[in-house]
């Protein structure tokens, strides 16, 4: 058991810190969360800066430990989050890197890394959420194209995306997991309609995407026809892996700020509140250690995060919601004021037990794949 970093890793950290100290003051002000085009420009601009400094491919190419250090240090320095680059860097990119042909990697990966193209994820459908494999969006082969019709929902960043990693049904007669293919769909194609959906937080984070006879080249399929489910599983394991490192660092900072606010407001004398904050401190310290544990394990293995990600996500999504519930108790009636810090975060925290596999689904995964309990009906 060793929590120390190698000299090379420490050097990476020191260089990164120095670079962040230099470039962060030169960044333009953060755009308003409602201004999507401005957010796109901002997020891509940041990715370009990472690219120029040699940090662009840290999510895929670096060792898990270096990735951990990168995410920890950027968050601590207050650097921008991946934002609109999330799907590209953490889902589609790693999938293409693992499953794409050399031509496909050459076509899609460099623009992602250079901060030139935004990707979105078109997996969920109105009738296929947790049961993703029940998806019905049809892709019919016609010459060199697939002709795609159907609808996707909850597609984050769809409004400003250039590409969509799309799951379609190519084998309607096959069992549901064996008739799916993974396509890279340009969002500019005729037949695509994007309708923004407002979230309960009031922002337009995701959208409905309607597909009407959209012609996607067969060359845009990653993996074999009808092998898309397996290809997708590669993507999802990335999503639940190190994706939350920066957020745990951020939660620990918020917790400190919250304690300071509690003191200012004289509710620090309330032992019940104080102990809840103490317990949350234990919680996030434990989650940080679990990240280190998982990263260290990935270091020894394939580098692809495994089902351990489900254990982490279950606990983390709950802890994050608890953090903002405690924040609301500190704030009292101010917790109803959207202009107060933490109030919008409390709203967005509500998505954590739903997005990227609900907590119920994660518990099924833990019980069946780690504990080996029988599959239910």
């Amino acid at each position: 058991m060793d929590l120390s970093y190698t000299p090379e890793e420490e050097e990476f950290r020191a260089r990164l810190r120095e670079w962040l100290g230099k470039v962060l003051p030169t960044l333009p002000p953060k755009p308003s969360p409602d201004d999507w085009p401005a957010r796109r420009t901002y997020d891509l601009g940041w990715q370009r800066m990472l690219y120029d400094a040699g940090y662009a491919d840290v999510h895929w190419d670096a060792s898990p430990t270096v990735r951990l250090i990168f995410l920890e240090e950027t968050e601590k320095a207050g650097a921008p989050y991946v934002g609109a680059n999330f799907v590209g860097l953490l889902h589609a990119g790693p999938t293409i890197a693992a499953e794409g042909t050399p031509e496909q990697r050459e076509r899609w990966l460099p623009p992602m890394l250079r901060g030139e193209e935004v990707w979105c994820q078109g997996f969920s459908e109105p009738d296929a959420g947790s049961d993703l494999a029940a998806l019905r969006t049809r892709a019919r082969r016609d010459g060199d194209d697939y002709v795609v019709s159907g609808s996707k929902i909850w597609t984050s960043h769809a409004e400003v995306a250039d590409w969509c990693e799309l799951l379609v049904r190519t084998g309607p007669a096959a069992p549901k997991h064996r008739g799916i293919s993974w396509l890279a769909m340009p969002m500019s194609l005729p037949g695509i309609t994007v309708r923004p959906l407002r979230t309960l937080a009031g922002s337009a984070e995701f959208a409905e995407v309607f597909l009407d006879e959209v012609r996607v080249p067969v060359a845009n399929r990653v993996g074999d026809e009808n092998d898309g489910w397996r290809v997708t599983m590669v993507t999802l394991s990335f999503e639940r892996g190190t994706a939350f490192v920066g957020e745990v660092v951020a939660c620990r900072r918020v917790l400190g700020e919250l304690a300071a606010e509690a003191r200012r407001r004289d509710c620090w004398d309330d032992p019940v509140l104080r102990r809840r904050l103490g317990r949350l401190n234990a919680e996030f310290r434990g989650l940080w250690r679990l990240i280190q544990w998982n990263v260290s394990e990935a270091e020894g293995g394939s580098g692809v995060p495994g089902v351990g990600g489900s254990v982490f996500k279950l606990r983390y999504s709950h802890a994050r919601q608890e953090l903002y519930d405690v924040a609301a108790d500190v704030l009292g009636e101010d917790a109803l004021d959207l202009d107060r810090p933490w109030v919008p975060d409390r709203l967005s925290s509500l998505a954590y037990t739903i997005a990227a596999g609900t907590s119920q689904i994660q518990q099924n995964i833990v019980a069946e794949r780690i504990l080996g309990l029988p599959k239910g009906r």
Partner: protein
Amino acid sequence: MRFQLTMEQRALRTAVRGVIGRGPSAGRWGPAAQFPAPLEGGDARPRLDRALWRALGELGFFSLRLSEADGGAGLGLPEAALAFEEAGRALVRGPLVATHLAAGEVPGAATGEVVVAAADGRLVEWLAEADVVRRGAEGAVPLRSVDPLTPLHRVPAPAPADPVAGLLTAAEQLGTATRVCELAVQHARTREQFGQPIGAFQAVKHLCAQMLVRAEVARAAVYAAAVTADRTDIAAARLLADEAAVRGARDCLQVHGGMGFTWESEVHLHLKRAWVRAQRGGGVTESEELLAADLVA
């Protein structure tokens, strides 16, 4: 960063498990004869397993952190934590923490010849059975212990909390958390109702999944605290491990149904032991306060 166990640490864990497994009381959790039932026994008290104690002593369970010059193995807290996790897992009885901490100070403690008890928080475990009683046991009065395998005395003034004792306690709790998860999963796989294993029902499945989640978070926290030996890390590890053990044992009981409520079943022993350990060193409140204070330090 190599947070995972080294080869040597794995070997140590296997060795401890082996000694405990060979002990005279191995595999005897089930029969009620192993310990007196309060209803039958009256004043009957559990006895120490002296043979196991000496075997643990020979293995270095108590001395492993002493330097080689002092007859120890020169190992650290991570190794001690692994050893205590195994002891917790197997419900080994006796004042393990007090004796471990006395090694090098109380003659015979390191080798397992002498059993040492000490006050921890407001309680002393195994006071009457120990050969040597250390600090803070003045004015101790017996109480009728809820845990049939841990006799308890109450002391008038609480003993100051020792961080190492806290860490070793957390490691024992981790052992319990892991064991009760295993027991629940075993039972859920084999017990059938409505024509299927109860583990196929989601309500049962999700109880088991949460047991694992709590145990794994606790594991990361306990091992990390063993590496850093930092007071705040140890307090966090205690809170997480106490929760994983106590709630895990509760859920394990639930998964066992009526069988879990019987005296014969092993389940209640884990729950009761977890309760006893959770009281050590100021208990939950003190850890929570320490962690709260850390936020504004």
